[in-house]
């Protein structure tokens, strides 16, 4: 059984602080949905509201069409996986997994059978009698998932459960989580500040900042067509050129920047004279003059080799360097720090957005 989750103009305030401001969206049945944002953006607050530990100040939460107002976390069809997992250290692995069933009055034999089923689902058969402390980080992770799945929730809520793992294990668990989600087919709502996690696992992502949902969309949508300056700077690497719109026509605009005029797409229909930021991805920039006027000149600060990619850092208008990412095919080797060179980009790969706050580096 799976259920959709609707946030109907949900606002959550603590005293005079607004943690979530008018969140309004619908998460479909069986969807893998992520809330992505820096810490303190309100994403955990949203998750705690869906699970029932918090009540919205305004608006309502509906799960499977049913209004959840006044329904406690122990009565909701959701299960939450905590950031620190919160496994019960004094119980065995099997008792941990079967805790939700014990609460529901299942017999000892039923609990054991179900625990064994779930242990094989998470590829940890015969680990039932171990104590939690005897497991590795990744194994604990999977036990936490099994414990939540044991109560057959319609929606599984995950609060940055991978953040305590090391990089390699984290990448492995991403694939694993996605596989488990496909197998059980229920709605997963995932909270993370790691855009890599959000983009690789999710069907759709909601990018949040300061309690406001900035954009909801699939990974490619959010990455390629960011809706706000915050999204553009938070999701993936991006180079920002500040300026004023000089001309606008045919969905494109020309921005007057400190590097001269630069052109890009104008999805928000900005008018001449408006303050704006042009964003172009490091992989959208090329070294050397292009075949049109969309180019600028700067000084090379550094030349960093990262395996298959080479990152060339150029002096920007702000202390933050402009990054050009090139495939390591030998062409970038000539770029020596201290030299000046031209860089260019295709206007269709650049996005001009209204001026707004950027993500902190």
């Amino acid at each position: 059984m799976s259920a959709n989750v609707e946030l109907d103009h949900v606002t959550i305030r603590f005293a005079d602080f607004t943690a979530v401001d008018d969140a309004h969206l619908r998460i479909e049945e069986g969807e893998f949905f992520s809330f992505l944002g820096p810490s303190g953006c309100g994403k955990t607050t949203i998750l705690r509201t869906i699970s029932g530990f918090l009540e919205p100040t305004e608006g309502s939460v509906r799960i499977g069409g049913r209004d959840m107002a006044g329904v406690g976390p122990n009565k909701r069809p959701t299960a939450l996986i905590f950031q620190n997992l919160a496994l019960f250290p004094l119980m065995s692995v099997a008792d941990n997994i079967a805790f939700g069933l014990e609460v529901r009055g299942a017999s000892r034999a039923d609990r054991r059978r179900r625990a064994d089923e779930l242990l094989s689902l998470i590829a940890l058969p015969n680990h039932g009698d171990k104590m939690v402390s005897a497991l590795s980080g990744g194994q604990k992770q999977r036990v936490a998932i099994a414990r939540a799945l044991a109560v057959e929730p319609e929606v599984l809520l995950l609060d940055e459960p991978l953040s305590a793992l090391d990089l390699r294990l984290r990448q492995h668990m991403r694939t694993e989580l996605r596989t488990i989600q496909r197998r059980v087919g229920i709605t997963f709502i995932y909270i993370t500040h790691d855009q890599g996690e959000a983009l690789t696992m999710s069907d759709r992502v909601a990018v949040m900042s300061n309690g406001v949902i900035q954009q909801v969309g699939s990974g490619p949508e959010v990455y390629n067509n960011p809706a706000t300056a915050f999204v553009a700077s938070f999701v993936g690497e991006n180079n920002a050129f500040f300026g004023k719109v000089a001309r606008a026509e045919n969905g494109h605009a020309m921005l007057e920047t400190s590097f001269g005029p630069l052109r890009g797409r104008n999805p928000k229909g900005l008018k001449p004279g408006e303050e704006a930021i042009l964003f172009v991805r490091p992989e959208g920039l090329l070294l050397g003059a292009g075949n049109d006027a969309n180019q600028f000149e700067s000084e090379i600060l550094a030349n960093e080799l990262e395996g298959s990619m080479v990152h060339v850092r150029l002096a920007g208008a702000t202390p933050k360097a402009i990054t050009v990412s090139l495939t390591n095919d030998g062409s970038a080797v000539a770029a020596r720090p201290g030299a000046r060179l031209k860089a260019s980009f295709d206007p269709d790969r650049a996005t001009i957005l209204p001026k707004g706050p950027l993500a902190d580096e």
Partner: protein
Amino acid sequence: MSETLLVLPALLLAGFGLAILLRRPAGAVGGPGFVERNGAVIAAYLVVAVGFWVLLMIVLPQLYMVDFSFRNNLPLPKQGGPEDVHTLKNYRYLLFGPEGSDQAFNWLHLKVFAKTIVASVLVTFFDFCLCYPIAYYIAQVARGGSSRLLFVCLLIPFWVNEILRAFAFRIIFGTSGVLNTVLIGMGILPPDAPIDFLRADVALYAGLSYAYVLMMVFPLYNAIESLDHNQIEAARDLGSPWWRIHWRVVMPHAKPGIASGCVMVFMLAAGALATPQILGGPSSLWFTQVIYDQFFQGANWPRGSAYAFVLLVSSIIFVMSAMRLFKVNLGDIAR
């Protein structure tokens, strides 16, 4: 006396034995030793101070008392004389009463003894029921300022002297006391038939429980406070009702604290003297009062020592068996 003095070298030997046992194995990897870490002056101070405290203030007087309990009650001139030999008669007295008595056992004292143990268990249980919710609230529910305020509210009454507090309870529970006046005023009791809370031992249990509230609250608080709040939320999220969260998550975690609080309250209640003296009903007697009477009314120090020693040993045995029953280690309690 001479035997007691012989104990001293024995203790010293035991101390050296312990030192050898606890010594770091040669060549073991580890930090600097006790003396290197603290410096010679502080290390010497610690050893002397702790040794003085443990040996002179605790071990020796207790051993002296044990020795005393096996002796005849002799007037001063006869001490050290031919009659001054070791005997079991003080212990026999507690069990069988005076020689030539018409009763098989010394029921009077044995009943008081049993009642003291049972009543102390009741006081411990009552304190636990009272303090667990308070400790849980302060440790897991209350935030910052309000938990500090609650602690202060718990602490301030204990600035008042124990005896004064006991008398305050007399004023509350007496036949013409506050509680009866209120109950009669509200029409719950007829004006001519107040309840004698003192005779019914209600005042005694209330007073003893109140006296050791802090001994229960602090260990419970410490244990519950260290529980990750997410565990409580996780249990709740998995559908657990509140009582099962406490039974399966909070109490197992807090078990060492529960044990430590219960041991302290039980030991103190069983050894209480002033509160039972003041709040006990006319017919009720605490075993400590019996001991007190042996010392100061009967002037029979050997018998008083024997009684005190029996109380100490049986309390320890009782506590140890309770801990074994609930699978708690002594080491856990000290945490």
